């Protein structure tokens, strides 16, 4: 008996969830710094080339693949050829791995929502974050036990993720994203308005967008642009394939792909004005060169921004709450998609009820995540992230392009997308999938391997990189092989066209 497949309640719900998955912490803390350090406004040229030759084509590829196969990544690849099933498990498992520490970063942001009241981080925000809050140990092997402050937020963030995903696609993820995304948008507008109206903000924005065209002749800038596009869009995470498998039959795939990718990148571009406006204000207030205040990633969010909040002329607590709630919301819509990417594969493979699968996935991820809640958690997080992103997700992207482009046939997915979409894809799309994306990702992959074998990543001991980094990569591959070798509890290999419901 064929069970009725879950479906999105509306097109808006799907688009909100897909944008929510793509928009994450990186949009707020990474894009603007990358633009600044790679030629300012000139970086937009390679960035847009990457967006239109790799980002949007892969987004449409994944939407078309999930929609046509009516299956999550493992099932969709298994339908191409049984032995290809592992190519669906690898990105799903990488999403699972990423989830285990992504939730921890959200936990920090949640803690900082509370610390905003009374600006609890004090004057020395660096010492507060790494010392008082994370209680960072002096080395990765000095684990030092669970950090209680992080653990409390960790439980709260997991509870939200759990209660959203257990309710399913339309009732859980869709409804949550219909709240998260508009709220995030409003908060972001407030952040940007506050950022650009501060004294010195224009100076910061000049640093963000002032073009240095000499930099775009550097191949590294192009590799960075493709990498940024690839990771920001949540492609090769098994998320978009799973999400599009829940779309109704007559969904416009190409237009949804363009909207999702442009909304994600447009959001990053927009937030750059907020963060660089604030950084410009800091440089102006302290009367120091801009280079001394600029930062990215964890340092920007948990050290520099709290410092800037201290310096604001008014409403400091309110701005702190807005900024960190925005981080939490941006992250939550991504973390629920990471749960769904893996859990939906388990549900499909083992014909498991959603509740049981979510209990299992969240339970295991929670337990594994505890290592990142320890006093050495930041070290583990940094290494795991580097290796999973560069060796599993990048490889999954290359394999996806090769398998779907050459073996399955990019033209078949293009014809499928064109049959339901208003925007028609030409053979240029096949070229992007078959040549541009795998070549650029391949070069990036080789450069990463070369770098990691000549120098220990992050200056950590080789033992840490081998055990934690390569250990995570090898564990992902082994579990992927185990999952793909087990028997399907549900007959998914029926005519895919018959499965499509209107």
């Amino acid at each position, binding site marked *: 008996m064929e069970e009725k497949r879950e479906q999105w309640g509306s097109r808006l719900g799907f688009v909100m969830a897909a944008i929510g998955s793509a928009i994450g912490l990186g949009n707020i803390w990474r894009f603007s710094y990358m633009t600044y350090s790679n030629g300012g406004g000139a970086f*937009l040229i390679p960035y847009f080339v990457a967006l239109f030759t790799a980002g949007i084509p892969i987004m449409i590829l994944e939407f078309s693949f999930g929609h046509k196969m009516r299956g999550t990544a493992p099932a969709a690849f298994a339908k191409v050829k049984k032995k290809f099933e592992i190519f669906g498990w690898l990105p799903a498992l990488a999403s699972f791995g990423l989830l285990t520490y992504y939730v921890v970063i959200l936990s920090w942001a949640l803690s900082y929502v509370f610390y905003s009241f009374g600006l609890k981080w004090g004057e020395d925000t660096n010492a507060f974050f790494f010392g008082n809050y994370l209680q960072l140990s002096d080395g990765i092997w000095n684990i030092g036990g669970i950090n209680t402050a992080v653990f409390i937020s960790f439980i709260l963030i997991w509870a939200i993720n759990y209660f959203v995903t257990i309710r399913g696609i339309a009732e859980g993820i869709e409804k949550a994203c219909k709240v998260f995304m508009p709220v995030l948008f409003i908060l972001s507008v407030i952040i940007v308005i506050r950022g650009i109206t501060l004294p010195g903000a224009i100076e910061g924005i*000049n640093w963000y967008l002032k*073009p240095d065209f000499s930099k775009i002749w550097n191949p590294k800038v192009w590799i960075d642009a493709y990498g940024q596009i690839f990771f920001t869009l949540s492609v090769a995470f098994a998320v978009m394939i799973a999400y599009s498998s829940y779309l109704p039959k007559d969904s416009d795939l190409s237009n949804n792909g363009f909207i999702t990718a442009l909304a994600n990148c*447009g959001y990053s571009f927009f937030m750059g004005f907020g963060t660089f406006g604030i950084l410009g204000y800091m440089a102006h207030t302290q009367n120091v060169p801009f280079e001394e205040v600029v930062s990215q990633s964890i340092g920007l969010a948990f050290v520099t921004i709290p410092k800037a909040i201290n310096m604001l002329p008014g409403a400091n607590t309110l701005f702190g709450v807005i900024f960190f709630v925005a981080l939490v919301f941006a992250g939550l819509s991504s973390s629920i998609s990471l749960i769904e990417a893996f859990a939906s594969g388990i549900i499909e493979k083992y014909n498991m009820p959603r509740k049981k699968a979510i209990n299992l996935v969240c339970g295991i991820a929670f337990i594994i995540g505890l290592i990142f809640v320890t006093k050495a958690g930041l070290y583990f997080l940094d290494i795991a992230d580097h290796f999973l992103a560069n060796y599993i997700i990048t490889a999954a992207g290359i394999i996806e392009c090769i398998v779907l482009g050459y073996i399955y046939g990019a033209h078949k997915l293009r014809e499928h997308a064109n049959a339901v979409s208003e925007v028609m894809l030409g053979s240029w799309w096949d070229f992007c999938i078959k040549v541009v994306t795998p070549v650029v990702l391949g070069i990036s992959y080789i450069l990463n391997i070369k770098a990691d074998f000549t120098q220990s990543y992050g200056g950590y001991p080789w033992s840490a990189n081998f055990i934690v980094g390569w250990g995570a990569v090898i564990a992902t591959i082994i579990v992927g092989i185990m999952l793909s070798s087990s028997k399907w509890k549900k007959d998914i290999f029926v005519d895919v066209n018959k499965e499509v419901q209107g």
Partner: protein
Amino acid sequence: MEPGAIVMFIFGAVVLWGGLAYFLSKAMKSKG
């Protein structure tokens, strides 16, 4: 703002926000 930064702002805004507005308007006009 410096002229170069203004030009790149317009360039980014037209491609990203203009592109998004274009595809959103198409989506709203279609029944899909």
